């Protein structure tokens, strides 16, 4: 691993395996599929998703609830419940090594020191019966074999780093004794404790007030710069993306329908869904705006419509859309969209 780090050197890692990104390429997800086999049928939650992530880069995955964002994250982390989940195809390579074919104990050792995740709901992902400081310290003990008092000391430093006031006095406090914002900071502390190269943040601020959201996003941004992590930010908030991400992938019914540089995507979306989303959100800096809503609902993943999955809601749809599935393709250099009429949409 080549990330700069304050406390760790690769030899600290008990795994013994070192991972070196080539040309800064940390993560490659290639044609990934995830299905859920349920009594009611097979839900295809991820339907051929591909992307890369480099050191120091922030990629936003934007989508509405149920579009497959969290499942993508869980597949990368290797924490999907299997069954009901099945991965019928695809590769997830970390520094060139396929995580999906790796022996489970080797893969487990990547969780934390290499790839790490902040969960959507901080309260339910912290253990309520242990003090937070102890929970952080435990990570140092398990992964680095540090002794108890040193681990606690490192935990305190980390809590200070994520701006928990009076961290030393609070190291023995339990999760419920912290506010929502502070719990989210503690989640962040735990996620970055082992200096991961890749950090996945799944809706890290969705449950928080805007003022707290601003603090948390600022902190994440700072940490990413400082450690040159690759950040995957999962969100449904077009505002948050605009503030943080370099690149964005828009997800709809388990597929990426558009992938682009953030500035370009906002100025000229290439997919009708992205366009519709941008027109349906009220903006703080506008008055007298008429909202144009996308009609209908995202599809049931057990019955994804034939042709373009967006066609029942798309105003631009033609016969070909109900028949042929558009592939994600490069429309103009660096811009990808899965729409038969992407050229027209991007110029609209």
């Amino acid at each position, binding site marked *: 691993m080549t990330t700069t780090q304050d406390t760790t050197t690769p030899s600290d890692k008990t795994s013994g395996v070192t991972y070196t990104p080539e040309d800064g390429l940390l993560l490659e997800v290639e044609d990934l599929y995830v299905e859920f086999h349920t009594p009611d049928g097979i839900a295809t939650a991820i339907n051929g998703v591909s992307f890369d992530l480099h050191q120091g880069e922030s990629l936003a995955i934007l989508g*509405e609830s149920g579009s497959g964002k969290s499942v993508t994250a869980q597949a990368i982390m290797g924490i999907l419940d299997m069954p009901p989940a099945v991965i019928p195809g695809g590769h997830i390579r970390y520094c060139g090594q396929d995580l999906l074919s790796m022996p489970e104990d080797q893969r487990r050792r990547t969780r934390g020191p290499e790839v790490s995740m902040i969960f959507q709901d901080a309260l339910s992902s912290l253990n309520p019966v242990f003090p937070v400081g102890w929970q952080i310290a435990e990570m140092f003990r398990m992964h680095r074999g540090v002794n108890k008092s040193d681990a606690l000391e490192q935990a305190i430093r980390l809590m200070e780093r994520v701006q928990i006031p009076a961290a030393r006095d609070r190291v023995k406090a339990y999760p419920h004794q912290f506010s929502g914002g502070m719990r989210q900071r503690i989640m962040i502390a735990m996620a970055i404790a082992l200096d991961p190269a890749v950090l996945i943040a799944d809706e890290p601020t969705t449950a928080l007030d805007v003022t707290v959201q601003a603090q948390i996003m600022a902190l994440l941004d700072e940490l990413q710069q400082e450690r040159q992590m690759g950040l995957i930010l999962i969100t449904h908030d077009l505002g948050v993306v*605009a503030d943080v991400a370099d690149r964005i992938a828009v997800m709809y019914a388990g597929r990426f329908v558009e992938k682009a540089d953030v500035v370009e995507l906002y100025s000229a979306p290439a997919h009708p869904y992205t366009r519709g989303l941008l027109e349906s959100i009220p903006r*703080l800096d506008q008055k007298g705006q008429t909202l144009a809503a996308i009609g209908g609902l995202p599809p049931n993943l057990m019955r994804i419509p034939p042709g373009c999955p967006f066609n029942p809601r798309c105003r631009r749809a033609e016969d070909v859309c109900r028949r042929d599935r558009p592939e994600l393709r490069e429309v103009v250099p660096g811009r990808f969209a899965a729409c038969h009429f992407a050229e027209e949409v991007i110029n609209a």
Partner: protein
Amino acid sequence: MPEVILSAQDLVKHYPIRSGVLRRVAGQVKAVDGVSFDLHKGETLGIVGESGCGKSTLGRLLMRLEEPTSGKVIFGGEDWSGASGRKLRQMRRNIQIVFQDPYTSLNPRMTVGDIVGEPLEIHSDVVPKGGRRKRVQELLDLVGLNPEHINRYPHQFSGGQRQRIGIARGIALNPSVLVCDEPVSALDVSVQAQVVNLMEKLQDELGLAYVFIAHDLSVVRHISDRVGVMYLGRMAELGEEDEVYSRPTHPYTQALLSAVPVPDPTLRGKRDQIVLQGDVPSPANPPSGCRFHTRCWKAQEVCTTDEPELELRPDGLGAHLSRCHFAEPRLILETVDVSDLEPDTRFAGTEVQDMSDLGAGLGAAGGGEDLGSSAADAGVERSSALHPDTDQAPQDTTRLVDEQPGDDRPTR
């Protein structure tokens, strides 16, 4: 300005905190602590503020779902604070409420027809028995739902559709005021606009006045004529939409506005960002003087001792209500007036349509879309497991208006 239809006068709601085995009152949560405003006929008053600042409690007080500790609610010139029995019922006819969470606020065991028609049963003089089914179907049609779905159950609808059911129920009695507590917060972005557009359409057609409670400042700006910003149970600033958003004078409003992310990456790093330190203090023990002084970067000695009044203070162009000793306007974000612009409707529409007709994966067996099986069933479980009488802050979303104690509703 049109006549005042509803007015809150110095409303206060304190909840006792009990502790120890004897459950002695150890303190008071000052959820709402002296809030006054007027609501005019046909207008929308937005209420914003951080979690726990008292927005939902205020909504419940307006509806008289909760007895105020002190203060009055005046409706149509009459004081309804002490009303009970018939008088209270009569008032409820005119003020209805729509709750936050479309997953838990509807009774899972009632059909849509029963849910929307229930107010008509309770207020049986409004529509004669024989005409009620027809009225319910009209209401469903009005909110963009298929009237033929009258016999379906809530779990057969999506979140946005459920919110429409809640709205249909809210307007069943032709109220003049609709209190909406976070009506679109639980909805996905693409569906949120459908419901917002519907609410605007209904307001135009029915002349409704809305109290629109939400934490999303962009949505509130979009829908509101006037806006009140709450902090720790009090109104920090109150004015026309433009006054509050373009010329805010209270530091809290300024900080709140500056924290809202704007969906425009070219503004990154160029916005005036005020990052507030620390959390909101406990409403059980609000700071002395100005309640915001513990987080305010402008605080002076006087702020810790003297509470500022909510009064007209100059905002650069005129003056509007603000509760700060050192109120002065600060431009957080340049506002673009886009009211002349026709929206681009080539890819999304502005009309309010029946979502179920689009058939986006809706199952023939009854709208069993994506949310249908998992989320909806979870919703059913959640609502049946509710204990409305717990000590905690009520889950505003879990109760329906007419299930409140004090409302002598007929047994069915």
